[in-house]
């Protein structure tokens, strides 16, 4: 197990089940802007959970991207499950206290809000009651005057009107249905701030050490090795790469940032100079490339000469 002293300077790739994830937004930006490695965002956005056109952290990297970053010493592999160490009793107590205090704070704020709302409501209903009393008083006075003019007994009227008034004030106020006060529990997306998360003690700065520890084992076959070398060659030439599944290849090759450009090439990796290549593959790849306004690249890896040779294929346009 290698604990790297500058593991915090290199980008931390958090490996779980042989997949490398980037959880920190600054690292995702650095990977793209500085190292022209794009990856794919795969996390659900909490506020837009019913769609997957827009996704958030974590970023997932192609295995070839991981191999390149580690070999170029730009990143380290973190054994993420092991980095989440069991929490001590004290740490758990601290975490619990923090949560309780956050809940109490939120409830206090909610209670204060509710009190001020009620106060606001009461003032208007007081107003209404006062106005209603005034109106009743006026009506009673008018009725009394009328009764006097017509010679009717006054006592009955005043009693009945005063009864109305008493009934008004005796009416119990409508009980407000108060909902139980709620608070939010925040679950952070990244483990970086958790006290018992210790990535530095579980970091691997070379592929060999990660393979020995059983954390990362790509590439294993000669085809996987060829894919890594072709990816590296294209990367060193300054291209941006993406996954090729949508166009029937191993990689998509962009002249610049995929946010600005469509890819020009679909790349297929040829394992060796003597690996069998059927004319049907030439037709299938070439035709699809031409139909999508791209060129298809056959990228041959020569293990003996340690170099990549490219052939571009497109439909002839006649015949």
């Amino acid at each position, binding site marked *: 197990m290698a604990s790297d002293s500058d593991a915090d300077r290199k980008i931390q790739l958090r490996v779980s089940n042989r997949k490398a994830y980037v959880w920190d937004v600054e690292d995702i930006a650095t990977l793209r802007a500085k190292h022209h490695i794009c990856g794919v965002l795969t996390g659900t956005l909490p506020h837009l959970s019913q769609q997957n056109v827009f996704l958030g952290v974590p970023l997932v990297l192609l295995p070839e991207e991981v191999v390149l970053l580690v070999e170029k010493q730009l990143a380290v592999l973190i054994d993420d499950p092991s980095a989440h160490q069991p929490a001590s009793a004290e740490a758990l107590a601290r975490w619990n206290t923090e949560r309780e205090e956050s809940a109490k704070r939120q409830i206090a704020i909610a209670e204060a809000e509710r009190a001020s709302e009620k106060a606001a409501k009461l003032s208007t209903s007081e107003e209404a009651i006062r106005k209603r009393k005034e109106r009743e008083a006026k009506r009673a006075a008018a009725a009394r005057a009328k009764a006097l003019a017509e010679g009717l007994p006054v006592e009955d009227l005043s009693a009945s009107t005063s009864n109305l008034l008493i009934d008004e004030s005796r009416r119990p106020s409508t009980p407000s249905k108060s909902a139980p006060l709620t608070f939010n529990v925040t679950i952070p997306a990244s483990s970086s701030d958790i006290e018992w998360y210790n990535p530095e003690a579980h970091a691997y700065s070379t592929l060999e050490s990660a393979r020995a520890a059983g954390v990362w084992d790509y590439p294993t076959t000669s085809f996987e090795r060829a894919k890594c070398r072709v990816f590296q060659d294209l990367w060193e030439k300054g291209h941006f790469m993406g996954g090729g599944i949508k166009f029937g290849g191993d990689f998509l090759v962009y002249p610049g940032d995929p946010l600005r450009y469509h890819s020009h090439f679909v790349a297929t990796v040829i394992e060796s100079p003597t*690996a069998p290549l059927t004319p049907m593959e030439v037709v299938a790849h070439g035709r699809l490339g031409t139909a999508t306004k791209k060129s298809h690249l056959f990228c041959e890896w020569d293990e003996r000469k340690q170099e990549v*040779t*490219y052939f*571009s294929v497109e439909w002839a346009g*006649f015949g």
Partner: protein
Amino acid sequence: MEKHPSYANLSPYLVKYPQVAGALFQTYNDLKLAQQWTGLEIIDVPSCSRCALRGSRPNTEEPLSVVPCSLSESLSTDWIRTTFRELGGPPHVYLAINTEDSSIVYYKISPGIVKPPL
């Protein structure tokens, strides 16, 4: 096949490379008669076990190289590399892929990373 007008030109090569005889015959006739290419010549490429053809498309001067093969063959990038070398390093080579029902499809192969036409 022997009675066909093209047979005279092709006969030595059809005998020399029997496995690709059908592909050569088909491609030669397609280029000459259907595609109407001019200045068609046959080039022996022993290291690829076949012949290549060179000519120009109608109303053009630029010579293009065509290598016939059969759909059932197994090629490799080494084979493509050899083809380019034996033909004197042309900017591109057209692979003429022939099928049993006499369909032909042509694919342009260029060395290096060549951007697609706009």
